[in-house]
C-alpha cells in the first residue's frame, strides 16, 4: 500500500486473454459516451448499476434504517399507543415528523425509494453478470499470456526433459488438483474456483427471493386477535374475532375456517430472588378442528414459543390474565347478571382492571328503568392494606385473590347503538353509589358478597377463571423468504471462502538445448495461497521435469528482464490488464487481501 504510483504506470501490456478478469463485477465508466438522450440514458443506467452506486445505496440504506429504531413506529407492537404518547410529548415537531413519515419509516416513500433503487441496481448488475459467467463456463480457460514471468506469481526453472512431456505432465497434475485445464499451443491453461462466482451470483439472486417473500407477506397476510376465558371457544370468522387487520389478498371473507376452544391455562412465576414475579411458564390447553367438521376435534397446547398451526393460520399465545366471576342481584333478589369478566393486567404483578356492565338490571329502587356498572381491580395477590400504595397486586400468581369494586347506577349508554369499549365504563350518565358520604367500595374474597347501598341489591364474587389472548396470523411467503435466506448463506459461504484462480504452465525448448519451465498463477488478490499452490504444483512437476544439475535447483532466471525487480512490470492489482482498461480497476482489491479464508 505504500507505493501507489505503480498503479498508473504503464506495464508492458502482457498479451491477450490472460488479462480476462477473474470477476464479473461491473466496470466503472468514466462519463457519458456519445451524445443525445440515448447516450445519457445509457450512462445513467451504467452509473446506477456500478459498484460505486451500489455501495452508496447500501450505505444510505443503513443510515435510513436508523431513525426507525429511535422514534416509535406504528407497525411495532403497541405502536399506535406509543406513537400517540410520543406525539403528545413532542407537540411542536410531531406534525413535521408525521409529514416526513418518521413514524412509518420502513414503509415510507424515501426508505422504499432507496431499497427499490438498490434492487433495480442489483438486477441491472446481476443479469449481465450471470450471462457473462455462463459464457465463461462454456469457453475454455484463457490461453497463457506470452510472458509468464511477468505475472504476479510465478516460478521458472530449467530441465532436461522434453517440453511436450512436461506440458502433458502439468496438464495431468492440474486436472488431478481439480482444475479445469486445457493443453494447447505448447502451454497449459487451467482455472479453478468457479463456485466462488456461482456463490456470489446465488447470494445476490436470493436477495430477490427474500424481498419477494417480504412483499408477498405484506400483500396477502392478515392478523386477528381473540381473547377467550377458560371454557370458551370461537369460530374463526370476522364477527367472532375481537379485531382483524387484513390486506389486499386476505380480507374479511378470506379467513381460514376453524374452531378453537380454550380448555384451561397454567402459569408459573418466579417466587424468590430479585426477579420475583417474572413469568416462567405459560401453557394454554386447547381443542380445535380445522374446516367445519366437528368430528375432527383434537386437543393440543399453545405456549409462548410454540404456536398452533390450524389450516393456513398460526395461533400464538400473546397474553393472559384473570376473569372474576360475579353474580349481580337486583333489589328484588333476581339474578340480573352472572358471568366471568376478563380484567386486563396493568403491571407485571397482574394488577388488573375491568368493568362489569349490567344492562338488563330492570327497575331500580326508585321504580324507573335503570342500568348498573361496576369498575374495579382484580388483585391475584392482594396486600393486607392499600394504604400508601392503592390497590396493587404483590405477585402475579393467585396466592391471595381479591376483587375491589365501585358501583354506579344510571345509563350505561349501551342503547345508543355506537360500539363501546367493553373494558371501560362511560360514566357520563352514571352516578356513583355512596355510603356515609364516601364512594361505596368493597374488597371481596372469593365467595364473599356485598350488599349494595340504597337497596340496589347485591354483588357476589363467586370465584375467577383464567383467560388467554391469542394472535391469529395468516402469513404466506415465509417459505419463500426462508429459502431465500438459506440460499443467501450458502451463496455467501461460496463467495467468501472459495477463491477463483488461474494457473498457466508453459515448457519451451531453449535454443541452446534443454527446456525452460514457466509457471504462473493469478488470483483475484495476491494471496499467499496461490503462491503455495503454485509451489506445490511445481514440486510435483519436478518429478517429470527435474531441475538441471548445474543450476542446483536455483530457479531465478539470469535475465533480469523476467523478474519485475524494478517494480513496474506488474500491475498491483494482480490483474495484468492494461491499466487504461477500466476493467482492471474493478477486479481486485489493491491490498493483498486473501479471499481464500477456507483454511
Amino acid at each position: 500500500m505504500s507505493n501507489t504510483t505503480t498503479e498508473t504506470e504503464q506495464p508492458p501490456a502482457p498479451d491477450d486473454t490472460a488479462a480476462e478478469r477473474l470477476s464479473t463485477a461491473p466496470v466503472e465508466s468514466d462519463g457519458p459516451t456519445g451524445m443525445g438522450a440515448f447516450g445519457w440514458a445509457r450512462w445513467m443506467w451504467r452509473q446506477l448499476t456500478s459498484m460505486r452506486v451500489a455501495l452508496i445505496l447500501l450505505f444510505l440504506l443503513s443510515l435510513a434504517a436508523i431513525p426507525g429504531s429511535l422514534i416509535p413506529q406504528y407497525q411495532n407492537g403497541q405502536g399506535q399507543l406509543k406513537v400517540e404518547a410520543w406525539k403528545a410529548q413532542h407537540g411542536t415537531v410531531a406534525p413535521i415528523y408525521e409529514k416526513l413519515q418518521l413514524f412509518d419509516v420502513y414503509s415510507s416513500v424515501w426508505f422504499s425509494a432507496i431499497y427499490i433503487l438498490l434492487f433495480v441496481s442489483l438486477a441491472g448488475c446481476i443479469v449481465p453478470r450471470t450471462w457473462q459467467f455462463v459464457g465463461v463456463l462454456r469457453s475454455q480457460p484463457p490461453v497463457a499470456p506470452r510472458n509468464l514471468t511477468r505475472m504476479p506469481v510465478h516460478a521458472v526453472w530449467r530441465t532436461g526433459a522434453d517440453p511436450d512431456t512436461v506440458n502433458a505432465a502439468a496438464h495431468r497434475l492440474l486436472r488431478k488438483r481439480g482444475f479445469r485445464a486445457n493443453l494447447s499451443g505448447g502451454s497449459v491453461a487451467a482455472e479453478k474456483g468457479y463456485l466462488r462466482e456461482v456463490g456470489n451470483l446465488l447470494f445476490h439472486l436470493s436477495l430477490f427471493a427474500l424481498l419477494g417473500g417480504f412483499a408477498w407477506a405484506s400483500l396477502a397476510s392478515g392478523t386477528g386477535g381473540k381473547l377467550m376465558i377458560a371454557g370458551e371457544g370461537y369460530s374463526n370468522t370476522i364477527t367472532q374475532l375481537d379485531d382483524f387487520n387484513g390486506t389486499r389478498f386476505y380480507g374479511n371473507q378470506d379467513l381460514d375456517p376453524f374452531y378453537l376452544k380454550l380448555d384451561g391455562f397454567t402459569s408459573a412465576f418466579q417466587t424468590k430472588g430479585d426477579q420475583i414475579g417474572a413469568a416462567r411458564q405459560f401453557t394454554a390447553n386447547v381443542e380445535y378442528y380445522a374446516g367445519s367438521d366437528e368430528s375432527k376435534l383434537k386437543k393440543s397446547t399453545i405456549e409462548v414459543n410454540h404456536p398452533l398451526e390450524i389450516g393456513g393460520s398460526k395461533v400464538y399465545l400473546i397474553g393472559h390474565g384473570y376473569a372474576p366471576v360475579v353474580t349481580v342481584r337486583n333489589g328484588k333478589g333476581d339474578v340480573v347478571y352472572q358471568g366471568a369478566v376478563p380484567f386486563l393486567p396493568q403491571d407485571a404483578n397482574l394488577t388488573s382492571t375491568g368493568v362489569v356492565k349490567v344492562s338488563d338490571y330492570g327497575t331500580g329502587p326508585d321504580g324507573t328503568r335503570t342500568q348498573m356498572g361496576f369498575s374495579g381491580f382484580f388483585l391475584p395477590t392482594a396486600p393486607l392494606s392499600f394504604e400508601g400504595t392503592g390497590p396493587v397486586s404483590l405477585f402475579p400468581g393467585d396466592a391471595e385473590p381479591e376483587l375491589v369494586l365501585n358501583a354506579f347506577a344510571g345509563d350505561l349508554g349501551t342503547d345508543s347503538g355506537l360500539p363501546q369499549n367493553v373494558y371501560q365504563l362511560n360514566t357520563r350518565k352514571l352516578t356513583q353509589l355512596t355510603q356515609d358520604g364516601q364512594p361505596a367500595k368493597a374488597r371481596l374474597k372469593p365467595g364473599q358478597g356485598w350488599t349494595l347501598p340504597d337497596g340496589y341489591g347485591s354483588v357476589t364474587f363467586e370465584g375467577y377463571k383464567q383467560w388467554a389472548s391469542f394472535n391469529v396470523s395468516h402469513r404466506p411467503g415465509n417459505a419463500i423468504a426462508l429459502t431465500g435466506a438459506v440460499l443467501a448463506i450458502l451463496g455467501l459461504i461460496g463467495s467468501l471462502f472459495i477463491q477463483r484462480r488461474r494457473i498457466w504452465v508453459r515448457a519451451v525448448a531453449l535454443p541452446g538445448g534443454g527446456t525452460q519451465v514457466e509457471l504462473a498463477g493469478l488470483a483475484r488478490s495476491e494471496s499467499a495461497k496461490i503462491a503455495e499452490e503454485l509451489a506445490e504444483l511445481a514440486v510435483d512437476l519436478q518429478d517429470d521435469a527435474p531441475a538441471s544439475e548445474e543450476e542446483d535447483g536455483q530457479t531465478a532466471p539470469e535475465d533480469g528482464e523476467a523478474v519485475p525487480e524494478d517494480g513496474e512490470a506488474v500491475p498491483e492489482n494482480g490483474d495484468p490488464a492494461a491499466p487504461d482498461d477500466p476493467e482492471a480497476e474493478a477486479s481486485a482489491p489493491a491490498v493483498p487481501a486473501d479471499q481464500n479464508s477456507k483454511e
Partner: protein
Amino acid sequence: MQLASAVDPQMADLSNKLIYSAMVVYTLAMFAHMIEWTFGSRGAVAVRSKEQAGSLSETVAAAGRKAAKKVTVTVAGAGGGTTTLTRTAVAGEGATVVTSGRGAEEEDGPGAAGTNDKADLAGRIAVSLTVLALLLHGGGIVARGLSVSRWPWGNMYEFSCAFAFAMAGAYLVLLASRKKVRWLGLPVVVAVLLTLGIATTTLYTDSEQLVPALHSPWLAIHVSTAIFCGGAFYAAFIATLLYLGKDSFEKRVEAGLTTGPFGTSASIWRRLPAASTFDKLSYRINALVFPLWTFTIIAGAIWAEAAWGKYWEWDPKETWSFITWVAYACYLHARATAGWKGRKAAYLALAAFACWLFNYYGVNIFVTGKHSYAGI
C-alpha cells in the same frame, strides 16, 4: 399454580466468585503484557526474527542434500517489491519445508518482546496467566449454567461473560495453532477486562430462570452465534485499528518522520506486523464472520416468528442487527470497488463495528424493545 424450577444459590455464588477470580488473573496477565511491551522496547528491533532464521538454515541444510526438489516462487508485492516463497521437498522422506522471505517494505515486526529475553519471559507468563484466567472464567460460566439448569446466556450479564470468554478463547486457540498473534495479547486482555467490568457492575442480575419467551432451542443457537460473531468482530476491529496505525506509521517513515501517529513511539509500531498483514487479517475475520452473522439474524427471525408471529417487526434490536449487517456488506463491497480500497474500506469497517457495539450496549440501555425483558 406450579412453582418454577429452583435456582441453586450455592452454585450461583460459586459462579460469581470464579468470575471475580478470573478478572483478577486477567489483570495480572495485563500487567505482564505491559512489562513485555516495556522491556521489549529496550532490545534492538531485529530485522528478522529468530524463528525465521532457524527455518532458513534448515532449508539450506535440506537443499544441500542430494535429490532435494526445490522451487522458488516469486510474488510481486503491492508496492512493486517482490517476495519469494521457497518450497523444498526431500526425495524419499516426503517432508517439505516452506520458507518465505519477504520484501523489506512488507516486513512483519518481531512481536511485542522485540529480541529482549526478559520481555519474552514476561510475555510467556502473560499467556500462562491468560490460560489460567480463561479456565476460571469458563468454570464461572458453567457454574452459572448449572445453578439454573439452562444455557447460561439469558440476560446481558450472562451474555457479556460468554462474549468475553469467546474473545479470550479465540485468541488462545490462534496462539495454540502456532499463529504469531501474541501481540494481540494486550488488546484482547484489556477488551476482556472491560467487558467483564461492565458486566459485573452495571449489567449484573442474579441467577434466575428465563421468561417463557426465551424458552426455545433457537435461544441457544441465536445467542451463541451472536456471541461468537461479537468476539470475532471485536478482533477484526482491533486488527483494523492497528492497520490504520501501522499504515500511517509506514507512510510517516517514508516521509522521513521518526515517530508513530499521535506521537506514539516508533518502537511499538516497528515490533508489530506489517500493515498489509493487519489488513488481510481484519478482512479475513470479517469475511469469515459475515455469513455467520447473516445466519444469526435469520435464526433470530425464525425465533421471533415462533414467539411473536412475525419474523421481522423492526424492533430496535432487529433494526440495529440489520444496520450492522448492511454496514458490513458495505465494507465487503468497498473492498471490491475502485477508489474505496485500503483506508476508506477500513473506516467503513470501523463504522460497522460501531453499529455492532451500539446494538450490543446502546439498544439495551437507551431504547426499549422486546429484547429488553431479561434483567436489563
